C-alpha cells in the first residue's frame, strides 16, 4: 500500500526541494506549505521504519527545533513586522516539515539522495548562474576588486559598487550584497567535494554535472570576487580533503574531538560571560568595564559591539520574545551571524534553543559521518555543505542585503537555504544512541536496500549510478 506511492512521493519531495532551491518567484511561503503538505504523505513511512528508541531520540533532538520554529514564526518581532498570520504560520510548519521531510524520506526505498542533491544543486546553480551572467554583463568580472571603494549614484543616493552584485529575486534582477549571493555560491561549491569520490573516466556524465554545479558556485564568488567568502571555503576544503584522504580517521577523530571540546569550552565560557555582561549582572559588567583588556574583548571591538546591541535588549521584558520595531538599535545591529539574528526574531529562548540545536546537530553529524552507510560522495557533500552554511551564516550573513531598499529585513529563518539545510539535517539525522531502524539488517530486507551499497561506502570506492 505504502510502496505503491513511493515514486509519486519521491517526485513531490524532489520537486519541492528544487523549487525551494531555485527560490522560484521568491515564494518561500508556498514552498513551506508545500513541504508541510507533502510531509503528511510521509508519516506512514516514518511510523513503519522508525523504532521507539529512535522516536524518543528524535523527540529530544527536535525539542529545540520546535522552540525555534514557534518563536521565529510567532514573536514580538514577527508580529510587529507585520509579516501576516499565514506567513508566520508557514514558518512554524515549514521549519518542522522540511526537517521531517529529510528524516522521513530516508525511509522511502525508492528515494535516492544523489538525485535529490543533484536536483537541489541544479536548481540553485540555475539561480546563481542567471545572476552571475547578468552581473558580468553589468559590472564586468572582478568589479569588487577593480572598483573597490568607488561609489555611484542611484536615485540621488550614493552606493558603493564593490559591495553589490545582481540577483534574481522573484521575477526581476535586483542589486544585492555580495555576501548574500556568496552564501548560495558557497553551498554550490561544496558539490566539488564530491569529485574526490567520483571517477571522471568511469562516471564521466555525473562528474561533469557535479563539476558544473560546483563551478557555477565557485565562479559566482571568484568573479566578484568575495575574498571573505573564499577564505571561509578554506576550512571546508580542508575538511573535505581530510575526510577523503586521511585513513586513520579514528585516531585523527579523537584529536579533533579533543580540539572541538576545548574550543567549545572556551566559546561556552566566553558566551556565558558575554550573556551575563549583556544581562547587566553587576559584578561581571563592572569587572569587564574596569579592565581595559576585558572591556576591549567584550564591549568595544567591532565584532562584540553589534552583538551586545542584540544581546542587551534580549534580556528586557519587551525583547524577551523578539524585538519590537521600537528596538531599532538592536534590530539594525549587523552581527553577521544567524546565531545572534535569532535573538532579534525570537528572543532569548529561541537563541538558547538554536545553540542547543546546533550542538545536537554537530553530535548527530559526527555520528552520521562515522556510522552511516551512505556513499562517500553523499556524506562529504552533506557535511561540507552544512559546515559551509554554518561558517557563512556565522560570519557573513547579511540581514539587510537589498542595496536600494536597505531597510528590508531578510530573515535567515525564512530563507530558502535554511529550508534546504533543515532537510539535509533531517536526512542525515543519526540518533545519538544506537542505529536507525532502516540500517538494521531486518529493516534493510524490508526496504530492499541493495546490500552492496554499505560495502561500497565502507571501502570508500567511487560509486557508479
Amino acid at each position, binding site marked *: 500500500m505504502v510502496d505503491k506511492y513511493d515514486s509519486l512521493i519521491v517526485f513531490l519531495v524532489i520537486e519541492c526541494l528544487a523549487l525551494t532551491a531555485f527560490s522560484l518567484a521568491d515564494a518561500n511561503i508556498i514552498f513551506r506549505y508545500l513541504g508541510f503538505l507533502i510531509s503528511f504523505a510521509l508519516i506512514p513511512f516514518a511510523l513503519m521504519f522508525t523504532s521507539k528508541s529512535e522516536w524518543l531520540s528524535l523527540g529530544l533532538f527536535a525539542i529545540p527545533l520546535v522552540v525555534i520554529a514557534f518563536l521565529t514564526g510567532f514573536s514580538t518581532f514577527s508580529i510587529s513586522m507585520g509579516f501576516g498570520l499565514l506567513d508566520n504560520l508557514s514558518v512554524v510548519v515549514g521549519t518542522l516539515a522540511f526537517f521531517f521531510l529529510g528524516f522521513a524520506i530516508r525511509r522511502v526505498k525508492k528515494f535516492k539522495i544523489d538525485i535529490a542533491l543533484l536536483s537541489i544543486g541544479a536548481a540553485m546553480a540555475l539561480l546563481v548562474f542567471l545572476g552571475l*551572467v547578468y552581473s*558580468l*554583463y*553589468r559590472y564586468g568580472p572582478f568589479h569588487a576588486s577593480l572598483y573597490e571603494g*568607488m*561609489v*555611484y*549614484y*542611484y536615485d540621488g543616493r*550614493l552606493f558603493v559598487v564593490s559591495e553589490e552584485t545582481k540577483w534574481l529575486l522573484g521575477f526581476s534582477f535586483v542589486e544585492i550584497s555580495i555576501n548574500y549571493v556568496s552564501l548560495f555560491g558557497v553551498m554550490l561549491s561544496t558539490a566539488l567535494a564530491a569529485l574526490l569520490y567520483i571517477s571522471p573516466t568511469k562516471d564521466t556524465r555525473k562528474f561533469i554535472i557535479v563539476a558544473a554545479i560546483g563551478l557555477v558556485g565557485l565562479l559566482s564568488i571568484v568573479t566578484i570576487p568575495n575574498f571573505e567568502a573564499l577564505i571561509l571555503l578554506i576550512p571546508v576544503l580542508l575538511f573535505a580533503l581530510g575526510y577523503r584522504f586521511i585513513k586513520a580517521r579514528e585516531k585523527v577523530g579523537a584529536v579533533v574531538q579533543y580540539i572541538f571540546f576545548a574550543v567549545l569550552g572556551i566559546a561556552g565560557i566566553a558566551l556565558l560571560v558575554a550573556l551575563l555582561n549583556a544581562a547587566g549582572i553587576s559584578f561581571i559588567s563592572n569587572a569587564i568595564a574596569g579592565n581595559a583588556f576585558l572591556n576591549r574583548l567584550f564591549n568595544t571591538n567591532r565584532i562584540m559591539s553589534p552583538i551586545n546591541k542584540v544581546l542587551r535588549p534580549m534580556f528586557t521584558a519587551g525583547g524577551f520574545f523578539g524585538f519590537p520595531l521600537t528596538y531599532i538599535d538592536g534590530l539594525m545591529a549587523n552581527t553577521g551571524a544567524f546565531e545572534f539574528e535569532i535573538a532579534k526574531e525570537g528572543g532569548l529562548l529561541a537563541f538558547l534553543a538554536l545553540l542547543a540545536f546546533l550542538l545536537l546537530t554537530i553530535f548527530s553529524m559526527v555520528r552520521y559521518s562515522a556510522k552511516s552507510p551512505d556513499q562517500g560522495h553523499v556524506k562529504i557533500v552533506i557535511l561540507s555543505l552544512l559546515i559551509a552554511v554554518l561558517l557563512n551564516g556565522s560570519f557573513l550573513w547579511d540581514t539587510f542585503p537589498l542595496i536600494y531598499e536597505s531597510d528590508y529585513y531578510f530573515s535567515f529563518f525564512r530563507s530558502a537555504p535554511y529550508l534546504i539545510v533543515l532537510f539535509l539535517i533531517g536526512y542525515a539525522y543519526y540518533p545519538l544512541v544506537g542505529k536507525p531502524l532502516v540500517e538494521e539488517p531486518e529493516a534493510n530486507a524490508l526496504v530492499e536496500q541493495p546490500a552492496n551499497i554499505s560495502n561500497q561506502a565502507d571501502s570508500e570506492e567511487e560509486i557508479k549510478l
Partner: protein
Amino acid sequence: MRKRTAFALLLTFAFVLTGCMNDVAELYEGHAYDTGIFAENYYSTWNEVLKNSVAPVAKTYDVTNANSFQIEEDADFAQLWEPDGFQNGQSGDYYSYFADTPHENAGYGYGPSNNLIAIDSSFARGFLSRLYDGRIHCDGITYAQTRVQIDGSGYGALFPKEMMSYRYFALSLRGADETDNLGTTFNVNINLTFYVYDFANSLYVPYLFQMKNFPIMTNSGGRTTIIGFYFAGVMGADVNLIRRASGMSITFSLEGDYEDYTIDREDATEGKEHFALMLYEVLLPKSTWN
C-alpha cells in the same frame, strides 16, 4: 546536443563579453562633490557632444516674471496652471512646500509627485539623479547629497532618453557663498538650454531660455526657491520645436551690483566671495520620454 550546448555557451560568452558594464560606467572616488569643502564641490561637467557637436542657437526665448512662476511657500503653488498645483492632481488643496520630503514618501508632496525618476526610471542612474529624485530641498537625511553645486559656467548633460512631450519646466535651487550672511536673496539670470539632435547634420541644436532676474533665496539652509515656466506660455506656436530634446544645460550670471562676488570657480581675486547655485531638482512634470 553538443552543438546546442556549444551554441548556448557561445551565446552566453558573447553576451558577457559584449556587456554594457553600465553599472561601472560612472563611478566616483569616495564622496564626490560632497566633501564639505565649498571649493571642491563644484560640478562643472559638460558632456563632450554638448561642447563639440553643437549648432548655433536656433531660437532664444525670454522668461520673465510675466510668463513664469516662483514658489517659496504653499500659496505660491496657485501660480501653476490648474490642476498642476493641487496635491491630488485634480482640485482641492495645493501642495504643501514643507511637507514635500522625505523622499521615502514618494508620491506625496510636489517633488516626489513630479520628479523625473518617477516618470521614467532611466533617470535614476548617475550623479545627476540628484536632480531627478524628487528632493526639492534639504530633506534632513541626505543633506549635501541632495544638491548639485554649479558656478556660472554650469553643466551640460544628455538625458537618458528623448523628451517626446512636455508641459512645464521647474528648477528648485538656492544660492550659496561662504559668508555668514544668512537668509539673503540674490538676483540671478539663468540660461537654460534644451538640445535637439539634428540627424541630418549630426549636431545638437540648442534652444535657449533666458530666465531673467529671478530673486533666489541664498544661504537659506535647506530652503529653496522653485522657479519655472510653461513651455506653451513662453514658446507659443513654437512649442513643438523642442520635441525630441535629448540634452540640457544650465549656466547663470548675477543680475545687479554684486562686485564683491564672483561666479567663476577659478577666480582667485582677493576679496571676492565665490557665489554658487545649489541645484536641488530639475522637474519636467507630465513629460513623456522615449
